[in-house]
């Protein structure tokens, strides 16, 4: 038996902040003290709070250490593990807590969260099937083997679970369609091709709790009468793929995959397919084409995959997060419990990836129906650097932005649709006053334009034309009629595109026009970008009153456009300035202003 459990976050976010070297330093320090074998060290799943990574959680002491560096390990081992004293310096502190706090339960980031899908993440070793079983794993699947397949579909329907991949179709209904489709061969496909820029919840689930996905697929296989499944995972997620492969080989060893599983006569095998980098493959029919070894091009529906899917056979395609919910629903009494959380039309919890200009970047799981205000200010801790909130983009390139006046909107499928956004996979990117909404729309459109597969004209040509207009506007050559043209193009593309990518890609443009029309007009009529993003539409100017002459900006400027003596206010040579923004990053007095081109400063940043 181990004395203590040391859980270091081993998800991509914390690894990027250096959790691997923290782990190595910790191991070395434990070995130096000769106490390595007294502790169980797990490089596990993600506790979600990427902002303060690398994170180390110590049980049973219930201590949450954050912002760790390899150097801290000497003190941590000596003081805490040997001396039994908490290292206060490494605890969580922030403007939202009065004193450093030691555990999850007193960190505001976690206060409004509810862990369902992520209940194992950061707790178990994702490479151990035993730990998954200990936490109740594969019980729901065992139960599914003893009940009728249509009863399983019925239970999933009763739970109210809707697809977590974007569109929000009832999962139970989808299963029932496939169950009732004729034919002996059917497929289960797990869509792990998480392509939305700014979204990483599926990856965290795959990395932190891979067996939950396998169990979800097994239950689905049992419910629809299928004996083979595919996981289509982005090749950009090597750690997720590695952990899935380990999970599959363990499940095979334990007889939970393969022939005659647990003696119930049910067979199931799971294949992993690595995606090859095409956003459109997140669309279900394109994904199927890709598994079949073709170009990932969508095809018209009907027939829906439930009738004719992979290799022409009835197929159920579910997103990672949807499948991770399944074991919780199909366990004894799980459906009713699940349906108690959330709103009338949207049940359960949803995992969101919080990013952008928000203090607490990371992953959070909250009950459906929570408001944007609660997520951004309570969970997310508000805007970075005390700036003003401008908007939050929900649903990535297929979604829309939510402005300040809609902050109290409850987050559920239907409210979001009404506001012109979508639930999408759950990426929330928060923007402040330094984000230009026209540039944001242009950014999303340039993404979808590049990723358009080219099959149908409205999407292939329409996005290009829209992008040209947006490039013109952000370049300072916008015309007053551009907004109407954008609007009419957007609606044509929405109405006439074949697949979800085309039908939703105008959303970022439409929603920014809807809520931030004045910014477009300012770009077009006044040739001014107040956020200081569109380079042709603003100048930098140094506030002569506030500049202390510290020369930080002079040194930072790559084109030597800033001149001035020490302790004298500096000047920017407008002819040379390339608007790269290096000076703003270095200015300690906030005295570099964004002004209209060729005019005196009238708006400060």
């Amino acid at each position, binding site marked *: 038996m181990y004395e203590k459990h040391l859980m270091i976050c081993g998800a991509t976010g914390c690894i990027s902040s250096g959790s691997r070297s923290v782990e190595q330093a910790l191991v070395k320090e434990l070995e130096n003290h000769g106490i390595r074998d007294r502790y169980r060290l797990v490089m596990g799943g993600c506790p979600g709070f990427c902002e303060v990574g690398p994170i180390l959680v110590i049980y049973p002491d219930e201590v949450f250490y954050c912002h760790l560096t390899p150097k801290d390990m000497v003190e941590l081992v000596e003081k805490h593990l040997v001396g039994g004293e908490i290292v206060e310096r490494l605890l969580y502190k922030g403007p939202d807590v009065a004193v450093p706090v030691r555990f999850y339960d007193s960190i505001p980031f976690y206060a409004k969260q509810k862990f369902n899908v992520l209940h194992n993440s950061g707790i178990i070793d994702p490479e151990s099937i035993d730990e998954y079983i200990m936490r109740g794993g594969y019980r729901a699947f065992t139960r599914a083997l003893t009940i009728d397949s249509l009863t399983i579909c019925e239970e999933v329907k009763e739970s109210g679970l809707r697809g977590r991949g974007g569109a929000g179709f009832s999962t139970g209904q989808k299963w029932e369609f496939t169950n009732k489709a004729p034919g002996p061969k059917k497929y289960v496909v797990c869509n792990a091709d998480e392509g939305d820029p700014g979204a990483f919840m599926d990856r965290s689930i795959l990395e932190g709790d891979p067996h939950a996905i396998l169990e979800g697929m097994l239950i689905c296989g049992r419910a629809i009468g299928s004996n083979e499944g595919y996981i289509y995972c982005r090749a950009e997620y090597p750690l997720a793929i590695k952990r899935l492969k380990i999970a599959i080989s363990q499940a095979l060893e334990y007889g939970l995959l393969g022939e005659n599983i647990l003696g119930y006569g049910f067979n199931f095998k799971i294949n992993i397919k690595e995606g090859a980098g095409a956003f459109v493959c997140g669309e279900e029919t394109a994904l199927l084409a890709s598994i079949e*070894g073709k170009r990932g091009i969508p095809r018209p529906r009907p027939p829906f995959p439930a009738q004719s899917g992979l290799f022409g056979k009835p197929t159920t395609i579910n997103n990672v997060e949807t499948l991770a919910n399944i074991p919780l629903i199909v366990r004894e009494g799980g459906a009713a419990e699940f349906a108690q959380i959330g709103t009338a039309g949207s049940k359960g919890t949803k995992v969101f990836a919080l990013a952008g200009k928000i203090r607490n970047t990371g992953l959070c799981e909250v009950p459906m129906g929570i408001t944007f205000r609660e997520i951004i200010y309570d969970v997310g801790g508000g805007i970075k650097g005390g700036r003003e909130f401008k908007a939050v983009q929900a649903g990535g390139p297929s979604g829309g932005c939510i402005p300040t006046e809609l902050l109290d909107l409850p987050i559920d499928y239907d409210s979001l649709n009404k506001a012109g956004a979508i639930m999408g996979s759950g990426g929330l990117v928060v923007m402040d006053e330094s984000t230009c909404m026209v540039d944001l729309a242009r*950014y999303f459109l340039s993404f979808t334009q590049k990723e358009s597969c080219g099959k149908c004209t409205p999407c292939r040509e329409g996005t290009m034309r829209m992008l040209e207009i947006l490039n013109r506007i952000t370049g300072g050559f916008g015309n007053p009629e551009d907004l109407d043209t954008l609007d009419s193009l957007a609606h044509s593309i929405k109405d006439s595109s074949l697949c979800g990518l085309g039908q939703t890609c105008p959303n970022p443009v439409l929603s920014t026009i809807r809520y931030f029309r004045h910014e477009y007009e300012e770009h077009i009529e006044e040739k001014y970008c107040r956020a200081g993003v569109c380079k042709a539409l603003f100048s930098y100017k140094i506030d002569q009153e506030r500049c202390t002459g510290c020369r930080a900006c002079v040194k930072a400027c790559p084109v030597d456009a800033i001149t001035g003596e020490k302790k004298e206010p500096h000047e920017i040579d407008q002819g040379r300035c390339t608007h790269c923004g290096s000076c703003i*990053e270095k200015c300690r007095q906030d005295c570099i202003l964004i002004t209209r081109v060729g005019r005196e400063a009238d708006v400060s940043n």
Partner: protein
Amino acid sequence: MNTDAEATAINQEIDLHQVDSIIEPYIGRKEMIIPVLQKLQEHFGYLPRQTMEQVSYRMHIPLSRIYGVATFYAQFKMRPRGRNIIRVCKGTACHIQGSPKIAERIEENLAIQNGETTTDLRFTLEEVACIGACALAPVIMINDNPHGRLTADKIKDILASYK
């Protein structure tokens, strides 16, 4: 696109036995063409034309279809790549926190554009949709090393540390 890299592409000797042994397990399974190409690229660093011709010949798939698949997916490269791959994250979080400025500075420093390789094959510059390290935005990956919370003025030193 630079000519040195292309010359290397043409001059590189492709060991067809190697290619065959990679293809072998998949013969008769035409749906496995993407994994075959992934394995070939893993081995050669890119997809030399000869390897695709060999896949066509051994797996009885028209070369046009193989080329169609290979050019559809962003992962497949038709030219040799540099020793160090720079991936600039163009995810939303990185974009609004200044990744375009970072990309520009790299392009200036190396005198190449997105997708290109330096003539000495030292660097290849690629833009990627999202590497999922949004907490560290803006972020770039060089090979497997993430460099986060970047500002443009850090670029020069970072690049200098890769040979």
